[in-house]
């Protein structure tokens, strides 16, 4: 059991954004005295009385940091009532993503009456407030020591969110199977064959491989890859292959001025110092290019996004954007929640303007990065940007991996139990032994997806069979 001996009512605060490199920094607070605390350290730009706010509200203002730092502009998101993640008055102070500034802000908030949160304490509160359901509970307990809220959010979306569906399906199938087995054991005098040996074997096989598949999927999701997969996505002939070669520093892809030269996936491993990246150039768009906004083109794109950790959306700087490119840009701008990768994380996108040598473009902060594969202009900036985006977005992979290890262990044990059951079934060892293994498997899956009780099994039996004399 995690440590949980903290009071649950006092006001806690913590830095809730990645420690370094992020553009925005957040200090999060929760507890009954959030507003009192803010009144002592936050000055709204406009005239508002914090204690009179009753609904979630965003307010611009400043936090007075100790000299020499002075007033720091920030945006306050205030949840004054229980309508928050933790079901307590909560707040977030959003400001620049600078570690020293954030630490100073945290110190100020604490001086105003908040307590430094223990690792995982926000999630614990949310958990205890019933904001997380049973499926998520185990994931939460597993990551209770995670360092900040965002890591936890990611962990949850990856583990509970992403796996709840398949696990629930497996759990349901196993419950059905168990119900049939148990019916055969408890209701011997019924003239019903509840499940045939062949059915039993095939259902066990199906369940066993489903569990194993999910476990593997989880490995794919949760482990820091040995190389980051970066996909180059763009309209034919925008210069993706040239860019790949330029980034890789050698001629790898067959390059031709004619559109559609790249007919297949092309991968290139590169190491920038100790940073390993797998650059993926694809022919996907080309294949569907006849109808740029067709569903097949979309499906192709989604697939590429799904398989990568980062997408470089390449636009030809020497010509105006076409409708497909406009669409991609707007998706990227919206955070493209629908375009999630294997980690169930919205894929970060870097917009790259290629062929910069053909037009006069300069690199301004926050603008798409302009590169020239011919002159090498902008390449270093792009490499920098790729590294910082990946580091930031996937900083919490290690925490997630820890949780995943627990879930994976459960799935592994479930798979082992099901293998036992398969063996027992093939040796015709007796349904009570098979049932024991299926039960163990269900218990293990239950640790991730919610426990079962006999009542659940009996309900299934009675709803399907005419039992009883």
């Amino acid at each position, binding site marked *: 059991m995690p440590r*949980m001996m*903290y009071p649950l009512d006092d006001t806690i605060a913590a830095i809730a954004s990645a420690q370094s490199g992020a553009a925005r920094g957040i200090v999060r607070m929760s507890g009954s005295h959030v507003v009192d605390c803010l009144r002592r350290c936050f000055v709204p730009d406009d005239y508002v009385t914090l204690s009179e706010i009753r609904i979630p509200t965003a307010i611009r203002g400043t936090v007075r940091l100790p000299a020499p730092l002075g007033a720091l502009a920030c945006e306050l998101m205030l949840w004054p009532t229980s309508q928050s993640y933790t079901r307590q008055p909560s707040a977030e102070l959003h400001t620049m993503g600078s570690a020293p500034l954030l630490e100073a802000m945290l110190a100020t908030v604490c001086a105003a009456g908040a307590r430094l949160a223990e690792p995982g304490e926000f999630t614990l509160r949310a958990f*205890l407030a019933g904001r997380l359901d049973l499926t998520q*509970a185990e994931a939460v307990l597993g990551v209770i020591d995670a360092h900040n809220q965002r890591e936890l959010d990611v962990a949850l979306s990856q583990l509970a969110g992403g796996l709840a569906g398949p696990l629930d399906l497996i759990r349901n199938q196993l419950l059905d199977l168990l119900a049939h087995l148990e019916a055969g*054991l*408890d209701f011997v005098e019924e003239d019903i064959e509840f499940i045939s040996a062949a059915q039993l074997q095939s259902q066990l096989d199906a369940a066993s491989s489903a569990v194993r598949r999910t476990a593997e999927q989880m490995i794919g999701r949760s482990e820091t890859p040995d190389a980051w997969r970066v996909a180059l996505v763009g309209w034919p002939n925008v210069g993706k292959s040239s860019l790949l070669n330029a980034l890789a520093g050698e001629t790898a892809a067959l390059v031709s001025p004619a559109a559609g030269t790249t007919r297949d996936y092309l991968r290139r491993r590169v190491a920038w110092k100790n940073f390993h990246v797998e650059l993926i150039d694809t022919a996907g768009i080309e294949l569907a290019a006849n109808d740029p906004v067709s569903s097949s083109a979309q499906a192709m794109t989604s697939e590429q996004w799904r398989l990568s950790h980062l997408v470089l959306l390449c636009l030809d700087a020497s010509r105006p954007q076409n409708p497909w490119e406009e669409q991609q840009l707007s998706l990227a701008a919206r955070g493209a929640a629908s375009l999630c990768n294997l980690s169930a994380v919205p894929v970060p996108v870097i917009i790259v303007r290629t062929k910069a040598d053909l037009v006069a473009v300069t690199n301004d902060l926050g603008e798409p990065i302009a590169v020239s594969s011919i002159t090498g202009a902008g390449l270093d900036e792009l490499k920098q940007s790729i590294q910082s985006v990946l580091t930031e977005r996937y900083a919490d992979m290690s925490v997630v991996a820890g949780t995943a290890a627990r879930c994976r262990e459960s799935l592994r044990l479930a798979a082992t139990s099901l293998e036992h059951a398969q063996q027992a079934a093939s040796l015709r*060892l*007796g349904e009570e032994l098979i049932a024991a293994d299926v039960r163990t498997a269900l218990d293990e899956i239950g640790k991730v997806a919610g426990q079962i009780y006999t009542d659940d099994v009996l309900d299934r039996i009675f709803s399907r069979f005419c039992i009883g*004399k």
Partner: protein
Amino acid sequence: MKSMATVIYHYDVLVVGAGHAGTEAALSAARLGAKTALLTTNCDTVAQMSCNPAIGGVAKGQIVRELDALGGAMGQAIDATGIQFRLLNRSKGPAMHSPRAQADKKGYQQEVKRIVEEADNLVLRQETVEDLLTEERGGVLHIIGVAVRGGAVYHAPAVVLTTGTFLAAIMHTGEAKTPGGRAGEGTTHGISGALHRLGFRVERFKTGTPARLNGRTIDYSQTQIQPGDDDPQPFSFLTERLTGEQLPCWITHTNEKVHALIRENLHRAPMYSGQIQSSGPRYCPSIEDKVVRFAEKSQHQLFLEPEGRHTREVYVNGVSTSLPRDVQDAMFREIPGCQHAQIMRYGYAVEYDYCPPDQLHPWLETKPVRGLFFAGQLNGTTGYEEAAAQGLMAGTNAALMLRGDEPLVLRRDQAYIGVLIDDLVTRSVDEPYRMFTSRAEYRLMLRQDNADRRLTPLGAKVGLVGLRRQALLATKEAEIARVTERLEATRADGVSLARLLSRPEVTWQDLTERLPELAIVPREVSQQVEYDVKYSGYIARQELQVERQKRLSMKRIPPHFDYTLIVHLRVEAREKFSRIRPVTLDQASRISGITPADVALLLAHLEGKGV
């Protein structure tokens, strides 16, 4: 009321009701040395089988063996009087083997009555209890006795209530309603009133029973015979051999004509006309339920079971019904073998009061009234075996309480009886509770063949079990140890015989060819050795699970813990914890609707005190 000289009797333990729960309760309390009175409205219906004339069956048979291992009467009584014995689930593994016997209804009753009459410290008395007497001491209600019809009063510091289906009971046959808990008998109102007055939640269940036929009028040639086992196995560990002649049962079935008849008359069935509102058991549906819910089945099995050696009455297992008499008559005219059968008693449904068992502590004492214990159908269970098991535990704990000893609470990994009572007090019931092997998560350990090894030592410790049983077990254990050692020490094909035996395809018979002395090992010993070896992998895994669960069960919750102190607890969780008052965190985690978060919060509070 005019003052009269009231007769007052003094006892240690009073048991109200002499059914399967009451008799075991009285016998066990008396065995522990408590001066006990067993009060019944009718001394001729002691241990009456109100429904089917059978003892045991899947999971229930295991319970009877456990009762016997703890010194209960049920096993010996059925061994002495049963008319057909079968070991069900023989084709499956030993954990599934379940003894079942067809009973001689009258013979069984007589036998239990005799056992009760011969017990020391025990008085069987015909009395109708009209009220429960309580007294408040230090803000806590204590039971002090009962008042009976005719102005007498029984005083005792412990009372075990086992009123079966007799509380505010109504029987239904079609449109006809009769007050009463069993055909031909009355109902008990005074106790119902007392329970309401004492603040118990009282709810209603229904159950049903089929018609009984005169066997002389059945044409068995149209049915299929179901004989007893050739080598019948006794229920009691004390019975060496069953000697009585075995009678067969017979199997017939319903058909589409019967189903059509039922469908046409559904509006006259109390369950469907709305006359009965309460819910019945799903595993024991009435024939009208079967026809409605499983319309695709063209026939349902019926078992024709003799009710005894000295009667021709036959119980028709499988057509429990509350349809009107004329429909019941017409139904049988369409059933093979029963076309000309005379109905001796019509089937009926009975509605009765029960007290949801989450009002009990795990030792079956009620939470509202100190010293008052409930057992049997009053707790929302069905079945003679389930009732007897609760009776034995309630009677034992009443006597232990008077001694000032710790209560005897069996764990889920120790006995079906432990599973039964834990389910009742922790999860309560929403249909009449019957035991299934699937309710026991440690089923492979809770076998009928090792009930004595699991429970007799526990029974001996509190004084439930006599010397004969203990000596038998000691001999058996010594022999098991000796034979196991021989198997470990003897090698064949480069492995020990024990290792050899662990292979699924190797039988005990194969071993005797390698080590001839094994041939004379008594079966009850060789069986134990064989099962221990064959199941060892599974048992080891189950034991691991038991260990894991034990950690939670070590965390005890103080008896008067105030759940309102945990301000963050969900309202539902607070309500359930406060009502059920789990004794350990383990029990708390099994309450329905309780989430891991609730348990974590409770744990946090118990450990940290600061939450």
